[in-house]
């Protein structure tokens, strides 16, 4: 499930994907997020936060989907951050160098952020 919230004062769009980001749902997630951006077309947004803190797993199709979102946001000159809480997801981000392409906030549940 994908939900969104807009903080107009901070010009920040936060999109939350609930659960894992896997091949079976990645396309639907991407479609829902595209619709959200379309809905906010014309709104003054400078920051985009992708909240994946409930994801315990992201597979290769999910990684490609997230990278596509980052490119999409970069094209719109948005400052993008991705929030994650799973060590397994963090390892996938490090391996794919996604953490070099975008700011990743990794805060494992019950531990300090890195």
């Amino acid at each position, binding site marked *: 499930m994908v939900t969104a919230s807009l903080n107009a004062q901070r010009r920040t769009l936060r999109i939350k994907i609930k659960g894992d980001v896997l091949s079976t749902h990645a396309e639907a997630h991407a479609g829902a997020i595209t619709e959200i951006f379309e809905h906010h077309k014309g709104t003054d947004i400078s920051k985009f936060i992708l909240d994946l803190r409930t994801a315990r797993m992201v*597979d*290769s199709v999910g*990684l490609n989907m997230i990278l596509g979102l980052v490119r999409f946001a970069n094209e719109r000159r948005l400052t993008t951050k991705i929030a994650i809480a799973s060590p397994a997801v963090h390892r996938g981000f490090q391996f794919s160098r996604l953490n070099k392409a975008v700011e990743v906030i990794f805060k494992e549940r019950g531990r300090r952020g890195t």
Partner: protein
Amino acid sequence: MVRSGSAISAATHGSPPLGWFDVLDAEDLVVPLADLNWIYLATDGLSDFAAQIGIDSLCLAYRLLTDSPGVADDLVAGAPDDILVMRLEVDSQPSQKGSFQPLIYEVYHGDEVDRIDDFQAVWRRSLQFALGDGLGSRLYDFLVCCREAVINAMVHGCDCSGGKACTFQVLFSPVLNCVRVRVDDPGKGHRFDPKERLEQLPNLDGQHLGLALIENLCDRFSIENNGCSLIFELSTGS
């Protein structure tokens, strides 16, 4: 049957005997003993109860054969049928490789890709049933790696065809504290170079990103049979 090198195979024919018939319709099964470490035999009560609780029957066998009798009795308290499981040790001095015990053995057809979430749920329940929290947070590394390997075998090895099948097997070595996964498919194979894939990663569009992800998330990774067999290991307790 578990052979050295930890390859699991199922008997090509035969089925659990039904006890209420006087005459059994039995056939001889000749099994070459070379490289054979273990033979597992079980009544259908094992697979029926495993299906009832949503795990692989080999995981249930593992617990029944390793837990103390009291714990094992509690495990199958809700079983609707008698369960008999035997493990015959063929190699009297099994090597370290032979110390791997089978936890999961499944055959998936190429047209079952859409069911990958269901398969993954069984793997998760089975591993947690057999090993408890032994993999810790690496359970999700395990699941991602298995998912990528099985999807790859179904799509590329089986061409998404219902007429082709791949095998998925998981083994555990209590001696080495290690889970080993092996996926075999009937395809033509491929050439995969992890280093080459990692160099391609800035583009991240490679179709073999899944294999590179496995190679990165697991502790040991190898390819055999020209790419048709994928073997990887994850250490437990790390």
